[in-house]
Protein backbone atom coordinates (compact mmCIF):
# COMPACT_ATOMS: atom_id res chain seq x y z
CA UNK A 1 0.00 0.00 0.00
CA UNK A 2 1.18 3.44 -0.86
CA UNK A 3 -0.38 4.95 2.22
CA UNK A 4 2.40 7.42 2.86
CA UNK A 5 2.45 8.94 -0.60
CA UNK A 6 -1.18 9.08 -1.64
CA UNK A 7 -3.25 9.32 1.48
CA UNK A 8 -4.99 12.44 2.63
CA UNK A 9 -2.56 14.50 4.65
CA UNK A 10 -5.39 15.74 6.83
CA UNK A 11 -6.10 12.29 8.24
CA UNK A 12 -4.01 11.55 11.27
CA UNK A 13 -2.50 8.12 11.48
CA UNK A 14 -4.43 6.10 13.98
CA UNK A 15 -2.38 3.78 16.11
CA UNK A 16 -2.84 0.05 15.86
CA UNK A 17 -3.83 0.06 19.49
CA UNK A 18 -6.63 2.49 18.89
CA UNK A 19 -7.77 0.53 15.88
CA UNK A 20 -7.81 -2.65 17.91
CA UNK A 21 -10.08 -0.87 20.35
CA UNK A 22 -12.66 -0.14 17.73
CA UNK A 23 -14.59 -3.35 17.90
CA UNK A 24 -17.96 -4.17 19.37
CA UNK A 25 -16.61 -6.71 21.86
CA UNK A 26 -14.34 -4.19 23.57
CA UNK A 27 -16.75 -3.36 26.38
CA UNK A 28 -17.53 -7.01 26.95
CA UNK A 29 -13.86 -7.99 27.09
CA UNK A 30 -12.91 -5.22 29.48
CA UNK A 31 -15.93 -5.99 31.62
CA UNK A 32 -15.18 -9.72 31.72
CA UNK A 33 -11.59 -9.14 32.81
CA UNK A 34 -12.70 -6.58 35.40
CA UNK A 35 -15.42 -8.78 36.83
CA UNK A 36 -13.20 -11.86 37.12
CA UNK A 37 -10.37 -9.84 38.64
CA UNK A 38 -12.75 -8.39 41.17
CA UNK A 39 -14.22 -11.69 42.28
CA UNK A 40 -10.88 -13.50 42.25
CA UNK A 41 -9.55 -10.84 44.61
CA UNK A 42 -12.53 -10.48 46.91
CA UNK A 43 -14.45 -13.75 46.76
CA UNK A 44 -11.85 -16.38 45.99
CA UNK A 45 -12.42 -18.26 49.23
CA UNK A 46 -16.18 -18.09 49.05
CA UNK A 47 -16.51 -21.29 47.05
CA UNK A 48 -17.25 -19.41 43.87
CA UNK A 49 -14.29 -20.94 42.08
CA UNK A 50 -14.56 -24.56 43.16
CA UNK A 51 -16.28 -26.99 40.82
CA UNK A 52 -19.76 -26.39 42.22
CA UNK A 53 -19.32 -22.65 42.23
CA UNK A 54 -18.08 -22.58 38.66
CA UNK A 55 -20.97 -24.77 37.58
CA UNK A 56 -23.36 -22.48 39.41
CA UNK A 57 -22.44 -19.26 37.61
CA UNK A 58 -21.78 -21.09 34.34
CA UNK A 59 -25.36 -22.35 34.25
CA UNK A 60 -26.76 -18.92 35.04
CA UNK A 61 -24.51 -17.31 32.40
CA UNK A 62 -25.47 -19.97 29.88
CA UNK A 63 -29.15 -19.18 30.43
CA UNK A 64 -28.49 -15.54 29.69
CA UNK A 65 -26.36 -16.50 26.69
CA UNK A 66 -29.10 -18.55 25.04
CA UNK A 67 -31.53 -15.67 24.95
CA UNK A 68 -28.81 -13.08 24.35
CA UNK A 69 -27.73 -14.72 21.08
CA UNK A 70 -31.26 -14.39 19.69
CA UNK A 71 -31.70 -10.87 21.01
CA UNK A 72 -28.28 -9.89 19.65
CA UNK A 73 -28.90 -10.99 16.07
CA UNK A 74 -32.35 -9.43 16.17
CA UNK A 75 -31.00 -6.15 17.53
CA UNK A 76 -28.31 -6.04 14.85
CA UNK A 77 -31.08 -6.61 12.32
CA UNK A 78 -32.65 -3.46 13.76
CA UNK A 79 -35.48 -4.84 15.88
CA UNK A 80 -36.33 -5.69 19.49
CA UNK A 81 -38.29 -8.53 20.95
CA UNK A 82 -39.85 -7.73 24.29
CA UNK A 83 -41.85 -10.94 24.30
CA UNK A 84 -38.85 -13.19 25.04
CA UNK A 85 -39.68 -13.52 28.74
CA UNK A 86 -43.33 -14.29 28.09
CA UNK A 87 -42.31 -16.69 25.35
CA UNK A 88 -40.19 -18.60 27.87
CA UNK A 89 -43.14 -18.93 30.25
CA UNK A 90 -45.48 -19.79 27.41
CA UNK A 91 -43.20 -22.43 25.89
CA UNK A 92 -42.65 -24.11 29.24
CA UNK A 93 -46.37 -24.18 29.88
CA UNK A 94 -47.13 -25.59 26.42
CA UNK A 95 -44.77 -28.49 27.10
CA UNK A 96 -46.52 -29.17 30.41
CA UNK A 97 -49.98 -28.95 28.81
CA UNK A 98 -49.10 -31.26 25.92
CA UNK A 99 -46.91 -33.63 27.88
CA UNK A 100 -48.79 -33.83 31.20
CA UNK A 101 -52.38 -32.63 30.78
CA UNK A 102 -52.85 -34.15 27.35
CA UNK A 103 -50.37 -36.95 28.04
CA UNK A 104 -48.58 -36.77 24.70
CA UNK A 105 -45.10 -38.29 24.46
CA UNK A 106 -42.50 -35.74 25.55
CA UNK A 107 -40.72 -35.55 22.19
CA UNK A 108 -43.96 -34.65 20.50
CA UNK A 109 -44.74 -32.02 23.12
CA UNK A 110 -41.30 -30.46 22.63
CA UNK A 111 -41.49 -30.40 18.84
CA UNK A 112 -45.03 -29.00 18.75
CA UNK A 113 -44.01 -26.34 21.29
CA UNK A 114 -41.08 -25.33 19.10
CA UNK A 115 -43.36 -25.07 16.10
CA UNK A 116 -45.92 -22.94 17.94
CA UNK A 117 -43.35 -20.60 19.48
CA UNK A 118 -41.37 -20.09 16.29
CA UNK A 119 -44.68 -19.40 14.55
CA UNK A 120 -45.38 -16.69 17.15
CA UNK A 121 -41.93 -15.27 16.40
CA UNK A 122 -42.78 -15.24 12.71
CA UNK A 123 -46.07 -13.51 13.49
CA UNK A 124 -44.22 -10.84 15.48
CA UNK A 125 -41.88 -10.30 12.56
CA UNK A 126 -44.64 -10.34 9.98
CA UNK A 127 -46.65 -7.70 11.83
CA UNK A 128 -43.55 -5.53 12.26
CA UNK A 129 -42.47 -5.61 8.61
CA UNK A 130 -45.99 -5.31 7.21
CA UNK A 131 -47.17 -2.44 9.39
CA UNK A 132 -43.83 -0.70 9.74
CA UNK A 133 -44.63 -0.18 13.42
CA UNK A 134 -41.74 -0.18 15.89
CA UNK A 135 -41.04 -3.72 17.04
CA UNK A 136 -40.91 -2.32 20.55
CA UNK A 137 -44.66 -1.79 20.60
CA UNK A 138 -45.65 -4.86 18.60
CA UNK A 139 -43.71 -7.23 20.85
CA UNK A 140 -44.91 -5.38 23.95
CA UNK A 141 -48.38 -6.47 22.88
CA UNK A 142 -47.12 -10.02 22.39
CA UNK A 143 -45.56 -9.87 25.86
CA UNK A 144 -49.00 -9.40 27.43
CA UNK A 145 -50.85 -11.73 25.09
CA UNK A 146 -48.50 -14.65 25.68
CA UNK A 147 -48.28 -14.06 29.42
CA UNK A 148 -52.06 -13.94 29.60
CA UNK A 149 -52.40 -17.28 27.81
CA UNK A 150 -49.65 -18.77 29.98
CA UNK A 151 -51.78 -18.06 33.06
CA UNK A 152 -55.21 -18.67 31.53
CA UNK A 153 -54.62 -22.03 29.87
CA UNK A 154 -53.33 -24.00 32.90
CA UNK A 155 -55.91 -22.36 35.17
CA UNK A 156 -58.72 -23.41 32.89
CA UNK A 157 -57.45 -26.92 32.29
CA UNK A 158 -55.75 -27.80 35.56
CA UNK A 159 -56.98 -25.20 38.10
CA UNK A 160 -53.38 -24.35 38.94
CA UNK A 161 -50.56 -22.28 37.48
CA UNK A 162 -47.68 -24.65 38.13
CA UNK A 163 -47.68 -28.04 36.45
CA UNK A 164 -45.17 -30.58 37.73
CA UNK A 165 -44.24 -34.15 36.94
CA UNK A 166 -42.41 -33.30 33.74
CA UNK A 167 -39.20 -35.05 34.71
CA UNK A 168 -41.03 -38.30 35.32
CA UNK A 169 -42.96 -37.93 32.07
CA UNK A 170 -39.71 -37.34 30.20
CA UNK A 171 -38.16 -40.55 31.56
CA UNK A 172 -36.89 -42.66 28.67
CA UNK A 173 -37.81 -40.08 26.06
CA UNK A 174 -35.32 -39.72 23.20
CA UNK A 175 -35.57 -35.96 22.74
CA UNK A 176 -35.82 -34.69 26.32
CA UNK A 177 -32.19 -35.53 27.27
CA UNK A 178 -31.01 -33.22 24.49
CA UNK A 179 -32.33 -30.38 26.64
CA UNK A 180 -32.26 -31.75 30.16
CA UNK A 181 -29.37 -34.22 30.11
CA UNK A 182 -25.72 -33.91 30.98
CA UNK A 183 -22.62 -34.68 28.94
CA UNK A 184 -19.08 -35.73 29.87
CA UNK A 185 -20.37 -37.49 32.99
CA UNK A 186 -17.63 -40.10 32.68
CA UNK A 187 -14.99 -37.41 32.54
CA UNK A 188 -16.33 -35.74 35.66
CA UNK A 189 -16.47 -39.10 37.46
CA UNK A 190 -12.82 -39.59 36.53
CA UNK A 191 -11.92 -36.09 37.74
CA UNK A 192 -13.67 -36.92 41.00
CA UNK A 193 -11.89 -40.23 41.27
CA UNK A 194 -8.44 -38.73 40.83
CA UNK A 195 -9.25 -35.83 43.13
CA UNK A 196 -9.31 -32.87 40.74
CA UNK A 197 -12.84 -32.02 41.84
CA UNK A 198 -14.44 -32.91 45.14
CA UNK A 199 -16.78 -35.86 45.63
CA UNK A 200 -19.68 -36.45 47.98
CA UNK A 201 -18.41 -38.09 51.17
CA UNK A 202 -21.76 -39.15 52.64
CA UNK A 203 -25.23 -40.22 51.67
CA UNK A 204 -26.46 -42.25 48.75
CA UNK A 205 -24.34 -40.25 46.29
CA UNK A 206 -21.13 -41.12 48.13
CA UNK A 207 -18.13 -41.29 45.86
CA UNK A 208 -19.83 -39.42 43.02
CA UNK A 209 -18.41 -36.05 41.98
CA UNK A 210 -20.32 -32.96 43.22
CA UNK A 211 -20.58 -31.87 39.64
CA UNK A 212 -21.71 -34.84 37.64
CA UNK A 213 -21.39 -33.41 34.13
CA UNK A 214 -21.95 -30.46 31.85
CA UNK A 215 -25.66 -29.69 31.57
CA UNK A 216 -27.02 -29.60 28.02
CA UNK A 217 -28.06 -26.04 28.78
CA UNK A 218 -24.39 -25.01 28.60
CA UNK A 219 -23.86 -27.05 25.45
CA UNK A 220 -26.83 -25.31 23.84
CA UNK A 221 -25.51 -21.91 24.91
CA UNK A 222 -22.07 -22.51 23.42
CA UNK A 223 -23.50 -24.07 20.26
CA UNK A 224 -25.84 -21.12 19.75
CA UNK A 225 -23.01 -18.64 20.31
CA UNK A 226 -20.79 -20.40 17.77
CA UNK A 227 -23.65 -20.70 15.32
CA UNK A 228 -24.65 -17.05 15.78
CA UNK A 229 -21.11 -15.79 15.46
CA UNK A 230 -20.40 -17.72 12.26
CA UNK A 231 -23.75 -16.79 10.79
CA UNK A 232 -23.17 -13.11 11.48
CA UNK A 233 -19.55 -12.72 10.45
CA UNK A 234 -18.88 -15.44 7.93
CA UNK A 235 -21.97 -15.80 5.78
CA UNK A 236 -23.89 -13.86 3.23
CA UNK A 237 -26.90 -13.90 5.49
CA UNK A 238 -24.80 -12.24 8.19
CA UNK A 239 -24.07 -9.38 5.84
CA UNK A 240 -27.81 -9.06 5.26
CA UNK A 241 -28.43 -8.92 9.01
CA UNK A 242 -26.00 -6.01 9.35
CA UNK A 243 -27.48 -4.34 6.29
CA UNK A 244 -31.10 -4.74 7.41
CA UNK A 245 -30.33 -3.08 10.73
CA UNK A 246 -27.87 -0.50 9.41
CA UNK A 247 -30.25 1.01 6.91
CA UNK A 248 -33.21 -1.05 5.77
CA UNK A 249 -33.98 1.21 2.80
CA UNK A 250 -30.40 1.17 1.55
CA UNK A 251 -30.31 -2.58 1.93
CA UNK A 252 -33.53 -2.94 -0.08
CA UNK A 253 -32.08 -0.82 -2.88
CA UNK A 254 -29.20 -3.24 -3.26
CA UNK A 255 -31.51 -6.21 -3.35
CA UNK A 256 -31.24 -7.49 0.23
CA UNK A 257 -34.51 -9.23 1.22
CA UNK A 258 -34.85 -7.13 4.37
CA UNK A 259 -38.31 -8.33 5.40
CA UNK A 260 -37.29 -11.96 5.17
CA UNK A 261 -34.15 -11.32 7.22
CA UNK A 262 -36.12 -9.56 9.95
CA UNK A 263 -38.85 -12.19 10.14
CA UNK A 264 -36.25 -14.96 10.29
CA UNK A 265 -34.48 -13.17 13.13
CA UNK A 266 -37.74 -12.88 15.07
CA UNK A 267 -38.19 -16.61 14.55
CA UNK A 268 -34.64 -17.28 15.71
CA UNK A 269 -35.22 -15.21 18.86
CA UNK A 270 -38.35 -17.23 19.57
CA UNK A 271 -36.38 -20.42 18.94
CA UNK A 272 -33.74 -19.36 21.50
CA UNK A 273 -36.44 -18.52 24.05
CA UNK A 274 -37.97 -21.95 23.51
CA UNK A 275 -34.60 -23.68 23.95
CA UNK A 276 -34.27 -21.80 27.23
CA UNK A 277 -37.76 -22.86 28.30
CA UNK A 278 -37.32 -26.54 27.44
CA UNK A 279 -33.98 -26.71 29.27
CA UNK A 280 -35.61 -25.02 32.25
CA UNK A 281 -38.67 -27.26 32.53
CA UNK A 282 -36.48 -30.35 32.10
CA UNK A 283 -34.24 -29.14 34.90
CA UNK A 284 -37.00 -28.07 37.31
CA UNK A 285 -39.41 -30.82 36.29
CA UNK A 286 -42.23 -28.30 36.28
CA UNK A 287 -43.62 -25.38 34.32
CA UNK A 288 -44.79 -22.21 36.03
CA UNK A 289 -46.87 -19.36 34.67
CA UNK A 290 -44.45 -16.77 36.01
CA UNK A 291 -41.32 -18.20 34.41
CA UNK A 292 -39.17 -15.90 32.33
CA UNK A 293 -40.34 -12.64 33.88
CA UNK A 294 -38.08 -9.75 32.85
CA UNK A 295 -35.88 -12.07 30.76
CA UNK A 296 -36.38 -9.87 27.70
CA UNK A 297 -34.67 -6.99 29.47
CA UNK A 298 -31.87 -9.17 30.78
CA UNK A 299 -31.24 -10.39 27.24
CA UNK A 300 -31.19 -6.86 25.89
CA UNK A 301 -28.87 -5.70 28.67
CA UNK A 302 -26.43 -8.53 27.97
CA UNK A 303 -26.47 -7.63 24.29
CA UNK A 304 -25.86 -3.94 24.95
CA UNK A 305 -23.05 -4.69 27.42
CA UNK A 306 -21.67 -6.82 24.60
CA UNK A 307 -21.39 -3.78 22.39
CA UNK A 308 -24.42 -3.90 20.08
CA UNK A 309 -26.04 -0.62 19.19
CA UNK A 310 -29.69 -0.22 20.17
CA UNK A 311 -30.27 1.37 16.80
CA UNK A 312 -29.12 -1.76 14.95
CA UNK A 313 -26.52 -2.50 12.33
CA UNK A 314 -23.64 -3.03 14.69
CA UNK A 315 -22.73 -5.59 17.30
CA UNK A 316 -21.25 -8.97 17.95
CA UNK A 317 -22.48 -12.32 19.17
CA UNK A 318 -19.21 -12.90 21.04
CA UNK A 319 -19.77 -9.56 22.75
CA UNK A 320 -23.30 -10.56 23.70
CA UNK A 321 -21.99 -13.86 25.08
CA UNK A 322 -19.45 -11.96 27.18
CA UNK A 323 -22.23 -9.65 28.32
CA UNK A 324 -24.20 -12.70 29.44
CA UNK A 325 -21.15 -14.06 31.21
CA UNK A 326 -20.63 -10.80 33.08
CA UNK A 327 -24.29 -10.80 33.98
CA UNK A 328 -24.20 -14.35 35.34
CA UNK A 329 -20.89 -14.04 37.17
CA UNK A 330 -21.88 -10.85 38.91
CA UNK A 331 -25.34 -12.04 39.86
CA UNK A 332 -24.01 -15.26 41.40
CA UNK A 333 -20.75 -13.72 42.58
CA UNK A 334 -22.47 -11.17 44.75
CA UNK A 335 -24.40 -14.02 46.30
CA UNK A 336 -21.18 -15.91 47.02
CA UNK A 337 -19.57 -12.76 48.37
CA UNK A 338 -22.52 -12.29 50.71
CA UNK A 339 -23.41 -8.94 49.26
CA UNK A 340 -27.01 -7.84 49.64
CA UNK A 341 -28.68 -9.08 46.44
CA UNK A 342 -30.60 -5.87 45.85
CA UNK A 343 -27.27 -4.20 45.12
CA UNK A 344 -27.10 -6.38 42.01
CA UNK A 345 -29.72 -4.17 40.41
CA UNK A 346 -27.71 -1.07 41.24
CA UNK A 347 -24.68 -2.65 39.64
CA UNK A 348 -26.72 -3.64 36.61
CA UNK A 349 -27.99 -0.13 36.08
CA UNK A 350 -24.53 1.36 36.40
CA UNK A 351 -22.86 -1.10 34.05
CA UNK A 352 -25.64 -0.69 31.50
CA UNK A 353 -25.17 3.04 31.50
CA UNK A 354 -21.41 2.70 31.10
CA UNK A 355 -21.84 0.21 28.28
CA UNK A 356 -24.19 2.48 26.35
CA UNK A 357 -21.87 5.46 26.75
CA UNK A 358 -18.86 3.42 25.64
CA UNK A 359 -20.79 2.09 22.64
CA UNK A 360 -21.77 5.56 21.54
CA UNK A 361 -18.14 6.61 21.74
CA UNK A 362 -16.99 3.61 19.69
CA UNK A 363 -19.65 4.27 17.09
CA UNK A 364 -18.41 7.83 16.70
CA UNK A 365 -14.89 6.58 16.20
CA UNK A 366 -16.05 4.20 13.49
CA UNK A 367 -18.14 6.58 11.51
CA UNK A 368 -16.01 9.64 12.14
CA UNK A 369 -19.02 11.59 13.42
CA UNK A 370 -18.33 14.33 15.88
Amino acid at each position, binding site marked *: *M*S*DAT*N*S*DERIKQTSRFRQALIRPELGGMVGTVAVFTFFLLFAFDSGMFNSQGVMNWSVVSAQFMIIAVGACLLMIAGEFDLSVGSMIGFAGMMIAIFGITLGWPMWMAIIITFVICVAFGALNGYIVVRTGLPSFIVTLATLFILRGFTIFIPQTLERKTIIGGIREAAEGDWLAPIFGGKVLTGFFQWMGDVGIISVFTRGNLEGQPVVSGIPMLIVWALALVVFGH*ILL*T*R*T*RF*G*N*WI*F*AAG*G*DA*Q*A*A*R*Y*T*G*VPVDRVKILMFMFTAFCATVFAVCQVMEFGSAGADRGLLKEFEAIIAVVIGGA*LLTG*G*YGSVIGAALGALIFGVVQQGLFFANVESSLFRVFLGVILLFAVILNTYI*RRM*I*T*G*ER
Partner: protein
Amino acid sequence: MSDPIIRMTNIEKHFGSVIALAGVTVEFHPGECHCLLGDNGAGKSTFIKTMSGVHKPTAGTIEFEGAEMNFADPRDAITAGIATVYQDLAMIPLMSVSRNFFMGNEPRKKVAGMSFFDHEHANDVTMSEMKKMGINLRGPDQAVGTLSGGERQTVAIARAVHFGAKVLILDEPTSALGVRQTANVLATVDRVRKQGIAVVFITHNVRHAMAVGDRFTVLNRGKTYGTASRGEITPEALQDMMAGGEELATLEGSLGGTV
Protein backbone atom coordinates in the same frame (compact mmCIF):
# COMPACT_ATOMS: atom_id res chain seq x y z
CA MET B 1 -26.12 5.97 -34.25
CA SER B 2 -26.27 2.88 -32.11
CA ASP B 3 -29.54 1.28 -31.06
CA PRO B 4 -30.87 2.45 -27.75
CA ILE B 5 -30.24 0.06 -24.88
CA ILE B 6 -33.37 1.18 -23.13
CA ARG B 7 -36.43 2.90 -24.51
CA MET B 8 -39.19 4.27 -22.34
CA THR B 9 -42.35 5.00 -24.31
CA ASN B 10 -45.28 7.07 -23.05
CA ILE B 11 -44.60 6.24 -19.45
CA GLU B 12 -47.37 7.31 -17.11
CA LYS B 13 -47.41 6.95 -13.38
CA HIS B 14 -50.29 7.89 -11.12
CA PHE B 15 -50.21 7.84 -7.34
CA GLY B 16 -53.87 7.85 -6.41
CA SER B 17 -55.22 11.08 -7.84
CA VAL B 18 -51.76 12.57 -8.41
CA ILE B 19 -50.34 12.24 -11.89
CA ALA B 20 -46.58 12.14 -11.39
CA LEU B 21 -45.72 11.23 -14.96
CA ALA B 22 -48.02 12.10 -17.84
CA GLY B 23 -46.49 10.26 -20.80
CA VAL B 24 -42.71 10.48 -20.94
CA THR B 25 -40.74 9.08 -23.87
CA VAL B 26 -36.95 8.86 -23.70
CA GLU B 27 -34.25 6.67 -25.23
CA PHE B 28 -30.87 5.92 -23.71
CA HIS B 29 -27.81 4.82 -25.67
CA PRO B 30 -24.78 2.83 -24.54
CA GLY B 31 -21.61 4.84 -24.04
CA GLU B 32 -23.51 8.06 -23.62
CA CYS B 33 -24.24 10.24 -20.67
CA HIS B 34 -27.86 11.26 -20.85
CA CYS B 35 -28.76 14.10 -18.53
CA LEU B 36 -32.26 14.23 -17.14
CA LEU B 37 -32.97 17.72 -15.93
CA GLY B 38 -35.89 19.12 -14.06
CA ASP B 39 -36.86 21.21 -11.12
CA ASN B 40 -38.07 19.72 -7.86
CA GLY B 41 -41.33 17.88 -8.39
CA ALA B 42 -40.83 17.56 -12.13
CA GLY B 43 -41.04 13.76 -11.91
CA LYS B 44 -37.35 12.91 -12.21
CA SER B 45 -37.31 10.61 -9.22
CA THR B 46 -40.54 8.87 -10.16
CA PHE B 47 -39.21 8.36 -13.66
CA ILE B 48 -35.97 6.72 -12.63
CA LYS B 49 -37.74 4.63 -10.02
CA THR B 50 -39.98 3.34 -12.78
CA MET B 51 -36.93 2.54 -14.86
CA SER B 52 -35.21 0.74 -11.99
CA GLY B 53 -38.19 -1.39 -11.04
CA VAL B 54 -39.19 0.35 -7.82
CA HIS B 55 -42.47 1.58 -9.34
CA LYS B 56 -44.58 -0.10 -11.98
CA PRO B 57 -45.71 2.32 -14.68
CA THR B 58 -49.46 2.93 -14.81
CA ALA B 59 -49.20 2.99 -18.60
CA GLY B 60 -46.49 2.86 -21.25
CA THR B 61 -43.77 0.39 -22.14
CA ILE B 62 -40.15 -0.16 -21.21
CA GLU B 63 -37.97 -1.81 -23.83
CA PHE B 64 -34.60 -3.06 -22.72
CA GLU B 65 -32.18 -4.25 -25.42
CA GLY B 66 -35.06 -4.45 -27.84
CA ALA B 67 -37.37 -6.58 -25.69
CA GLU B 68 -40.25 -5.35 -23.58
CA MET B 69 -39.57 -5.62 -19.86
CA ASN B 70 -41.79 -5.79 -16.83
CA PHE B 71 -39.73 -5.43 -13.72
CA ALA B 72 -41.44 -6.89 -10.68
CA ASP B 73 -38.96 -5.38 -8.23
CA PRO B 74 -35.57 -3.63 -8.16
CA ARG B 75 -33.82 -6.99 -8.10
CA ASP B 76 -35.15 -7.80 -11.58
CA ALA B 77 -33.82 -4.53 -12.93
CA ILE B 78 -30.44 -5.07 -11.28
CA THR B 79 -30.23 -8.57 -12.74
CA ALA B 80 -31.01 -7.19 -16.18
CA GLY B 81 -28.19 -4.67 -15.76
CA ILE B 82 -29.92 -1.49 -14.66
CA ALA B 83 -28.16 -0.16 -11.60
CA THR B 84 -29.18 2.90 -9.67
CA VAL B 85 -27.05 5.03 -7.39
CA TYR B 86 -29.53 6.90 -5.25
CA GLN B 87 -29.09 10.25 -3.58
CA ASP B 88 -28.83 8.50 -0.25
CA LEU B 89 -26.42 6.08 -1.90
CA ALA B 90 -27.61 2.79 -0.46
CA MET B 91 -24.47 2.68 1.68
CA ILE B 92 -24.46 1.76 5.32
CA PRO B 93 -22.06 3.95 7.30
CA LEU B 94 -21.43 1.45 10.10
CA MET B 95 -20.42 -1.31 7.72
CA SER B 96 -17.03 -1.67 6.10
CA VAL B 97 -16.41 -0.58 2.53
CA SER B 98 -15.94 -4.18 1.51
CA ARG B 99 -19.18 -5.35 3.13
CA ASN B 100 -21.00 -2.44 1.52
CA PHE B 101 -19.42 -3.08 -1.85
CA PHE B 102 -20.75 -6.62 -1.92
CA MET B 103 -24.03 -5.98 -0.14
CA GLY B 104 -26.70 -8.06 -1.86
CA ASN B 105 -24.04 -9.69 -4.09
CA GLU B 106 -21.90 -11.44 -1.52
CA PRO B 107 -19.22 -13.70 -2.97
CA ARG B 108 -19.41 -17.16 -1.48
CA LYS B 109 -17.10 -20.08 -1.14
CA LYS B 110 -17.90 -23.58 -0.06
CA VAL B 111 -16.27 -25.00 3.02
CA ALA B 112 -17.31 -28.51 4.00
CA GLY B 113 -20.49 -28.27 1.96
CA MET B 114 -21.66 -25.04 3.56
CA SER B 115 -21.37 -21.72 1.86
CA PHE B 116 -19.60 -18.85 3.57
CA PHE B 117 -18.97 -15.20 2.77
CA ASP B 118 -15.64 -15.09 0.92
CA HIS B 119 -14.08 -12.18 2.77
CA GLU B 120 -10.67 -12.57 1.18
CA HIS B 121 -12.01 -12.25 -2.34
CA ALA B 122 -14.31 -9.39 -1.32
CA ASN B 123 -11.46 -7.46 0.28
CA ASP B 124 -9.13 -7.92 -2.70
CA VAL B 125 -11.73 -6.83 -5.23
CA THR B 126 -12.76 -3.84 -3.11
CA MET B 127 -9.20 -2.61 -2.73
CA SER B 128 -8.38 -2.93 -6.42
CA GLU B 129 -11.66 -1.38 -7.59
CA MET B 130 -11.20 1.54 -5.21
CA LYS B 131 -7.67 2.04 -6.43
CA LYS B 132 -8.90 2.17 -10.03
CA MET B 133 -11.28 4.93 -9.02
CA GLY B 134 -8.50 6.81 -7.29
CA ILE B 135 -9.53 6.22 -3.69
CA ASN B 136 -6.96 5.00 -1.23
CA LEU B 137 -8.52 3.09 1.61
CA ARG B 138 -6.81 2.44 4.91
CA GLY B 139 -8.07 -1.07 4.52
CA PRO B 140 -11.12 -2.91 3.19
CA ASP B 141 -12.54 -2.99 6.71
CA GLN B 142 -12.65 0.79 6.92
CA ALA B 143 -16.20 1.90 7.67
CA VAL B 144 -18.05 3.76 4.94
CA GLY B 145 -18.94 6.38 7.56
CA THR B 146 -15.36 7.64 7.47
CA LEU B 147 -15.47 8.40 3.72
CA SER B 148 -16.39 11.79 2.31
CA GLY B 149 -19.55 12.30 0.30
CA GLY B 150 -17.70 12.21 -3.03
CA GLU B 151 -15.83 9.07 -2.07
CA ARG B 152 -19.05 7.36 -1.07
CA GLN B 153 -20.55 8.33 -4.40
CA THR B 154 -17.57 6.86 -6.17
CA VAL B 155 -17.80 3.64 -4.14
CA ALA B 156 -21.45 3.37 -5.10
CA ILE B 157 -20.67 3.91 -8.79
CA ALA B 158 -17.75 1.48 -8.72
CA ARG B 159 -20.00 -1.08 -7.09
CA ALA B 160 -22.66 -0.72 -9.78
CA VAL B 161 -20.11 -0.96 -12.58
CA HIS B 162 -18.34 -3.94 -11.03
CA PHE B 163 -21.59 -5.87 -10.92
CA GLY B 164 -22.13 -5.52 -14.63
CA ALA B 165 -24.37 -2.51 -14.94
CA LYS B 166 -25.24 -1.73 -18.56
CA VAL B 167 -27.32 1.24 -17.56
CA LEU B 168 -26.15 3.33 -14.64
CA ILE B 169 -28.68 5.72 -13.16
CA LEU B 170 -27.23 8.46 -10.99
CA ASP B 171 -29.77 10.35 -8.90
CA GLU B 172 -28.40 13.84 -8.25
CA PRO B 173 -24.91 12.58 -7.55
CA THR B 174 -23.44 16.05 -7.23
CA SER B 175 -26.16 17.90 -5.37
CA ALA B 176 -24.56 17.64 -1.93
CA LEU B 177 -20.92 17.83 -2.91
CA GLY B 178 -18.24 20.48 -2.84
CA VAL B 179 -16.44 21.74 -5.92
CA ARG B 180 -13.55 19.33 -5.90
CA GLN B 181 -15.64 16.30 -5.00
CA THR B 182 -18.04 17.19 -7.78
CA ALA B 183 -15.16 17.26 -10.24
CA ASN B 184 -14.11 13.80 -9.04
CA VAL B 185 -17.57 12.39 -9.50
CA LEU B 186 -17.91 13.94 -12.97
CA ALA B 187 -14.57 12.41 -13.90
CA THR B 188 -15.87 9.06 -12.69
CA VAL B 189 -18.97 9.46 -14.83
CA ASP B 190 -16.76 10.15 -17.83
CA ARG B 191 -14.68 7.04 -17.11
CA VAL B 192 -17.78 4.87 -16.80
CA ARG B 193 -19.27 6.21 -20.02
CA LYS B 194 -16.08 5.36 -21.92
CA GLN B 195 -16.53 1.73 -20.84
CA GLY B 196 -19.66 1.65 -23.00
CA ILE B 197 -22.18 1.99 -20.21
CA ALA B 198 -25.27 4.12 -20.65
CA VAL B 199 -25.23 6.72 -17.91
CA VAL B 200 -28.45 8.44 -16.85
CA PHE B 201 -27.49 11.53 -14.93
CA ILE B 202 -30.23 13.23 -12.97
CA THR B 203 -29.53 16.75 -11.85
CA HIS B 204 -30.99 20.20 -11.58
CA ASN B 205 -27.60 21.80 -12.04
CA VAL B 206 -27.23 22.80 -15.67
CA ARG B 207 -23.51 23.40 -15.35
CA HIS B 208 -22.83 19.88 -14.09
CA ALA B 209 -25.03 18.52 -16.87
CA MET B 210 -23.21 20.49 -19.54
CA ALA B 211 -19.86 19.24 -18.22
CA VAL B 212 -20.48 15.56 -18.98
CA GLY B 213 -23.75 15.25 -20.90
CA ASP B 214 -24.07 13.95 -24.46
CA ARG B 215 -27.82 14.36 -24.53
CA PHE B 216 -30.25 16.37 -22.45
CA THR B 217 -33.87 15.79 -21.61
CA VAL B 218 -35.87 18.25 -19.59
CA LEU B 219 -38.80 17.10 -17.48
CA ASN B 220 -41.42 19.50 -16.27
CA ARG B 221 -44.63 18.70 -14.43
CA GLY B 222 -44.52 15.06 -15.46
CA LYS B 223 -43.91 15.76 -19.13
CA THR B 224 -40.83 15.97 -21.30
CA TYR B 225 -39.87 18.88 -23.50
CA GLY B 226 -37.97 16.56 -25.80
CA THR B 227 -34.33 15.62 -26.08
CA ALA B 228 -31.46 17.68 -27.38
CA SER B 229 -27.91 16.61 -28.21
CA ARG B 230 -24.76 18.30 -27.04
CA GLY B 231 -24.13 21.46 -29.04
CA GLU B 232 -27.78 21.83 -30.04
CA ILE B 233 -28.78 23.68 -26.94
CA THR B 234 -27.38 26.38 -24.70
CA PRO B 235 -27.26 26.25 -20.91
CA GLU B 236 -29.59 29.22 -20.78
CA ALA B 237 -32.20 27.48 -22.86
CA LEU B 238 -32.02 24.40 -20.62
CA GLN B 239 -32.37 26.55 -17.55
CA ASP B 240 -35.44 28.24 -18.96
CA MET B 241 -37.07 24.96 -19.88
CA MET B 242 -36.50 23.57 -16.41
CA ALA B 243 -38.15 26.51 -14.77
CA GLY B 244 -41.09 26.30 -17.15
CA GLY B 245 -40.03 29.25 -19.26
CA GLU B 246 -40.99 32.82 -18.76
CA GLU B 247 -40.78 33.55 -15.01
CA LEU B 248 -37.08 32.90 -14.78
CA ALA B 249 -36.29 35.31 -17.58
CA THR B 250 -37.28 38.22 -15.38
CA LEU B 251 -35.61 36.73 -12.33
CA GLU B 252 -32.45 36.15 -14.25
CA GLY B 253 -32.27 39.79 -15.17
CA SER B 254 -32.20 40.82 -11.54
CA LEU B 255 -29.78 38.08 -10.53
CA GLY B 256 -27.39 38.85 -13.34
CA GLY B 257 -27.52 35.42 -14.99
CA THR B 258 -26.03 33.64 -12.02
CA VAL B 259 -28.66 31.01 -11.43
